[in-house]
């Protein structure tokens, strides 16, 4: 009887053993002792921690003015477009009231990334491509070779300085110096623009746009703060605000200058005679 059963069992018991072993192996590898990430790179951080890291980079840039170092640090986050990531984070921070106070720093760094590096501003090497390998011990280690400490990289064209490079001082406001003056104000009738669009441009004494400048708009029962440079496609010194029809607004710059009052969306007409609300354009400049 048992001799007749033997051939029918065949190799099933071997397959059963293999499956039991496989199950045990996966249980150990995925549940009991999964790969532990102990040396991760900033690129693998959770989104909110990445945002904190990005804010930190921007704040450090604002404190030191070292663009090369900031750029190197941004690459560690693995953003496809670091400048866009900074801009979006600044916009989001402003939309929620900027509780961390980082919007200005983020906008400044986003703007600075538009400028090419000048001689002496060489991106520092903080980390390299974050490729990871898995060790047989079940410990995953980020092996991207940090070639050196985050220090300036000497080259043949640069003469090592005997003394440390002086650091720029902390500038909590976009510009220090003379207050801004309104140099142009015009009503804009353009059907391609949003109705009641209040456009603000802010420039320094040299006519260069100033990003991160705070603009304060008030009206009866309301107040709004917004910043220049968050729509870089329209200019780094540009900011806008949509006015409601028939409401009078007053606008001033946080950096100083006289407020502009009685801003009202003008009545405009299309070529076909249809009526619509136009916008207002203001240009501020340092004298």
């Amino acid at each position, binding site marked *: 009887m048992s001799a007749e059963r033997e051939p029918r069992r065949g190799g099933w018991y071997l397959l059963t053993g293999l499956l039991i072993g496989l199950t045990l192996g996966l249980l150990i*590898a995925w549940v009991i002792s999964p790969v532990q990430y102990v*040396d991760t790179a900033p690129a693998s*951080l959770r989104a909110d921690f990445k945002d904190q890291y990005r804010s930190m980079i921007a704040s450090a840039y604002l404190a030191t003015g070292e663009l090369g170092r900031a750029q190197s640090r941004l690459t560690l986050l693995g953003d496809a477009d670091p400048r866009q990531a900074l801009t979006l984070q600044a916009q989001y921070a402003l939309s929620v009231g900027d509780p961390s106070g980082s919007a200005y720093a983020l906008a400044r760094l986003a703007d600075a990334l538009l400028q090419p590096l000048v001689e002496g501003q060489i991106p520092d090497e903080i980390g390299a491509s974050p490729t990871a390998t898995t060790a047989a011990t079940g410990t995953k280690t980020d092996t991207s070779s940090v070639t050196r*400490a*985050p*220090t300036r990289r000497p080259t043949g064209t640069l003469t090592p300085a005997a003394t440390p490079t002086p650091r720029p001082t902390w500038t909590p406001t976009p510009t220090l110096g003379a207050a801004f003056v309104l140099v142009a104000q015009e009503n804009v009738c353009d059907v391609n623009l949003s109705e009641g669009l209040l456009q603000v441009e802010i420039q320094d004494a040299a006519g260069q746009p100033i990003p991160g400048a705070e603009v304060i708009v008030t009206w009866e029962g309301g107040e709004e703060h917004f910043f220049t440079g968050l729509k870089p496609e329209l200019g780094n010194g540009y900011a806008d605000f949509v006015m409601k029809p028939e409401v009078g607004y007053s606008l001033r710059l946080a950096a100083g200058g006289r407020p502009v009052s009685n801003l009202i969306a003008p009545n405009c007409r299309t070529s076909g005679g249809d009526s619509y609300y136009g916008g207002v354009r203001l240009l501020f400049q340092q004298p």
Partner: protein
Amino acid sequence: MSRWHKFLIMIALGLAAGLVYGWVISPVEYTNTTPDTLRADYRRDYVLMAAEVFHADQNLDQAARRLGMLGSEHPARIAAQALIYAQQDNFPESDLALLQGLATALQTWQPVLRSTYSAGGGSP
């Protein structure tokens, strides 16, 4: 070789295959890691950033909060560790001075506990 021996060998082979698959071929992916898992040099650079900002604004509370992102250790200890590693890696003097300044300042820093509960109501 007995049937039991073959059975145990197959279990061992399956175990090995499972471990290779789970640890090497398809390990658990950690895409949302926390800052306390950052590699030492990245942590050190983060502390350096905090030191750069502290040097400019002298806001010790904010610096301590920023270092709190790196773990539950006392910020002074985090800064001190970063300073030691920075010295070992021959950071420039200017960076070492920044780290030293932050580490020293944090030694006397104590977290301020703010109660959000106001007993008795009303404002002073």
